[in-house]
């Protein structure tokens, strides 16, 4: 399954890219599994995703939880807790 990954704020800086398109391996079926797999892709990914309590995820522009399934998803954004307002 091909998905577009988006990174924002310090996650973007640590990963070293604002977006990438990746084919998810079989077995990467939830947000938690995606983060585990992404963390193995580079030192930057690993550093950015090290503390999961500081990571938030949106699947197709909706806030997700670690258990959110990825079936059918096309855009997954990974970012720190929001600080607007």
């Amino acid at each position, binding site marked *: 399954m091909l998905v577009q990954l988006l990174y924002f704020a310090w996650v973007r800086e640590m990963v070293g890219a604002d977006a990438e398109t990746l084919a998810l391996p079989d077995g990467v079926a939830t947000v938690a599994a995606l983060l585990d797999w992404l963390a193995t892709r580079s030192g930057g990914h690993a550093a950015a995703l090290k503390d999961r309590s500081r990571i938030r995820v949106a699947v197709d522009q909706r806030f997700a939880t670690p258990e959110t399934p990825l079936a059918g998803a096309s855009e997954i954004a990974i970012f720190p807790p929001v*600080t607007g307002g």
Partner: protein
Amino acid sequence: MIAARLQAEPFEAAAEQAALLAGRSDLGAAVSFTGLVRADDGLVALTLEHYPAMTLTQMQAIADQASARWPGVEGSIIHRHGRLLPGEAIVLVTTASPHRADAFAAAQYLMDWLKTKAPFWKREERADGSARWVEAKASDDAAAGRWDQPGRVVM
């Protein structure tokens, strides 16, 4: 109806309120809240990054939740993005209703949820050339959580 807008340009709080109230005689209360860039600890600029495909949709969802909770309230929320200087306005919440309690409550509700559920991130630049991303505050989550239906805005 509460309308959401996202823009890089400055806004005019007085004009926004005047437009909301123009020609109306049924409204008894109007509230205007402006959030500003504060020059703490040598801050020289604040950059607001956001998630373009999600931000406005999420802001409107928050506005719609407020409308559902206070049907008599009308108004708007405007949030800026980009690089802002101390003293510049970041966010504007304008509400009006027949009586003051609803206008005040809806304005506070809108701000509490904008702080915790709209995908913006603040990056601070300091006079010494350093920069850092603002950390989310547990107190902001607590402020939003006291509105006793926390699950409903998480769309």
